[in-house]
């Protein structure tokens, strides 16, 4: 029994009222926009937090409302929001929801109702997180990794209720991500349209698909860690809590292992890096190929690289823990696996560059962001090789080198792709182009500003400036001049942050006043640009699902009329376009 024809034959129930169409919507496109707007809103909060942190470091003591506790709360919330509530949500919930059904040629996700629940659970988790700002003691200041014992000990900011709300919010987020993730994976596996084989999927779908699988398998570990820590905090159990003397008082905890939490956390935490990175890989591949008017170099190897990165990401977790006091033999194992995972990642970088090679490159705004991603990701990836080696990691651990590394590789790089993706797909979402001038300004400020922020940070790390310190005065080993760099970084950070408001203004303005885009402004081949309506209507495809005849990258095919052949264009006679497929 084939289920796709069955789905095609089902009558469409277009929602009629405002509420069912835009609020309690089960349409994947509306849910995608809901996810994206919520993630952007919460991301703005985290952006402002990073400003405050940088202000404290650049001009210590000038802002009386940032005391050490507040500073730690800012650090924690900034990290947690950016990694989980912004990046994970926007890639899986935003891009995943919008692109998967359109790119595989489905009417919607397989279970639209569960998909809707996923968004509402996500919104609830965000609200719980935001609520922690208003409880006594404020949000938790334990650092985004929430390491026990300090995460739940008195003295850490937010150890009263902030940490509890944080963990509850994470558990809700995991429920949301699971409900959404089951939909994305099942849709890719079971609801592709006629002719859409796995090896004809655009790489965006592959990246999001693999990232979702990682999410389904890695978030359970965070869930378990969260539940166990809630037990420790609320019921007084001692999973992670050794016998501790806190503020001169012997606590009741006994016999727990803080390192156990770190293992559980990073068993989630490392795949999480790839949950954010793999969709970015996929989207960048599509943007580069489309705007260079050239097929992606080595499509199959790109797919297998995504798959092998996904598999390997489950056996590298303890490279975050070289200084934790774990079994010393682990360093050997995890350094090797970490260096192995660099191989498929490097293959992807080569292939992006080779796709650009001799392409007909259009330096549009999405393309600028995609190329910028290749640059920042390479820098961040190479510093990752340093940190993956135990001997080099030991002196660099917990310095600003690490901060610079992970911001380059999983902060800035995926965010650049988010921007690139939005500039690329905005015409399909709204039917209007984003303003190009504003986009250029936004890009150059963001891209150059990023390097201005993070390049000096590597040097600060090399001279030993530790991360997570409230102020750096009076440390013999940090030269006075380091403060000059800190001021420079802070000013750059303020400018990059301000540049994002240009982007928001552009979004709002262009949604109503932008130049009408037409159905396929980039002359792209993939299915989402071939919908009968722009923006796509409910059910996406009208009466008949599209039929796919070729892979997603038939650009500049010799002998073809135009420089692109859409996936759903049938081969005409001896048209050689279909030759590259299967």
């Amino acid at each position, binding site marked *: *029994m084939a289920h796709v024809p069955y789905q095609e034959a089902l009558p469409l129930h277009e929602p009629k009222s405002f509420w069912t169409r835009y609020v309690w919507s089960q349409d994947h496109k509306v849910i995608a926009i809901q996810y994206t707007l919520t993630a952007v809103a919460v991301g703005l909060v985290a952006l402002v937090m990073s400003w405050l942190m940088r202000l404290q470091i650049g001009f210590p003591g000038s802002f009386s409302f940032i005391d050490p506790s507040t500073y730690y709360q800012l650090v924690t919330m900034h990290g947690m929001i950016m990694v989980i509530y912004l990046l994970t949500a926007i890639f899986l919930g935003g891009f995943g929801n919008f692109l998967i059904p359109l790119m595989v040629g489905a009417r919607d996700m397989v279970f639209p109702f569960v998909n809707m629940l996923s968004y509402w659970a996500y919104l609830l988790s965000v609200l719980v997180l935001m609520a922690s700002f208003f409880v006594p003691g404020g949000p938790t200041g334990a650092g985004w990794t929430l390491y026990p014992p300090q995460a739940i000990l008195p003295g850490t900011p937010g150890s009263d209720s902030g940490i509890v709300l944080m963990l509850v919010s994470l558990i809700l987020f995991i429920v949301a991500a699971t409900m959404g993730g089951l939909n994305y994976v099942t849709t890719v*596996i079971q609801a592709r349209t006629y002719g859409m084989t796995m090896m004809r999927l655009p790489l965006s779908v592959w990246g999001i698909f693999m990232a979702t*699988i990682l999410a389904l*398998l890695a978030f359970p570990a965070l869930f378990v860690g969260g539940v166990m820590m809630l037990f420790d905090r609320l019921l007084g159990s001692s999973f992670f809590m050794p016998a501790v003397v806190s503020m001169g008082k012997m606590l009741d905890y006994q016999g727990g*292992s803080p*390192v156990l939490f770190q*293992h559980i956390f990073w*068993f989630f935490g490392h795949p999480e890096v790839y949950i954010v990175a793999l969709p970015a890989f996929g989207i960048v591949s599509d943007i580069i190929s489309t705007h260079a008017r050239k097929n992606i170099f080595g499509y199959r190897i790109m797919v297998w690289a995504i798959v092998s990165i996904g*598999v390997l990401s*489950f*056996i590298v977790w*303890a490279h975050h823990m070289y200084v934790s006091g*774990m*079994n*010393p*033999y*682990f360093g050997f*194992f995890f350094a090797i696996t970490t260096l192995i995972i660099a191989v498929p990642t490097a293959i992807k970088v080569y292939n992006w560059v080779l796709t650009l090679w001799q392409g007909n490159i259009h330096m549009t705004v999405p393309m600028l962001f995609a190329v910028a991603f290749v640059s920042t990701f390479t820098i961040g990836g190479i510093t990752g090789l340093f940190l993956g080696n135990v001997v080099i990691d030991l002196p660099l651990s917990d310095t600003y080198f690490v901060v610079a590394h992970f911001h380059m590789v999983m902060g800035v790089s995926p965010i650049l792709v988010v921007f690139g993706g939005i500039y690329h797909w905005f015409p399909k979402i709204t039917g209007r182009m984003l303003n190009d001038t504003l986009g250029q300004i936004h890009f150059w400020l963001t891209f150059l500003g990023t390097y201005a922020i993070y390049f000096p940070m590597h040097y600060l790390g090399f001279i030993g400036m530790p991360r997570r310190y409230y102020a750096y005065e009076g440390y013999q080993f940090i030269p006075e001049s380091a403060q000059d760099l800190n001021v420079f970084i802070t000013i750059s950070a303020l400018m990059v942050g301000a540049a994002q408001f240009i982007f928001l203004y552009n979004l709002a303005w262009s949604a109503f006043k932008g130049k009408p885009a037409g159905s396929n402004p980039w002359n792209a081949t993939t299915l989402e640009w071939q919908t009968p309506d722009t923006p796509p209507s409910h059910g996406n495809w009208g009466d008949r699902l599209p039929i796919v005849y070729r892979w997603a990258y038939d650009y500049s095919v010799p002998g073809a009329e135009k420089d692109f052949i859409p996936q759903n264009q049938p081969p005409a006679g001896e048209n050689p376009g279909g030759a590259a497929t299967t």
Partner: protein
Amino acid sequence: MEHVEAQQHPIGLYLKVWLLLFVLSTMSYMVDYLEFQSYLRWFLILLFMILKAGLIVAVFMHMSWERLALKCAILLPPLALLIFIGLMTMEADFTFIVRSIFFGQ
């Protein structure tokens, strides 16, 4: 629908597996009741556990009638857990040694 045809199995098979699960559960209970110890105990516990789990997955959850594509997709990812468990055994051993040394002083 074809799916319906594919899922019609003789009830006798279910009854046999059911009975077998009862027998295996009784045997694993007897491991405790007869107070086997050490490696024999652990071996028997694991043996009966795997047999029971295998029967449930293969027959009750219809895994043995599924196509290989589904079997692989479902049964391969948990291998990541085996690596996790293996490394955590080493880690727990190490923690125990460190604690013994520290508390033994």
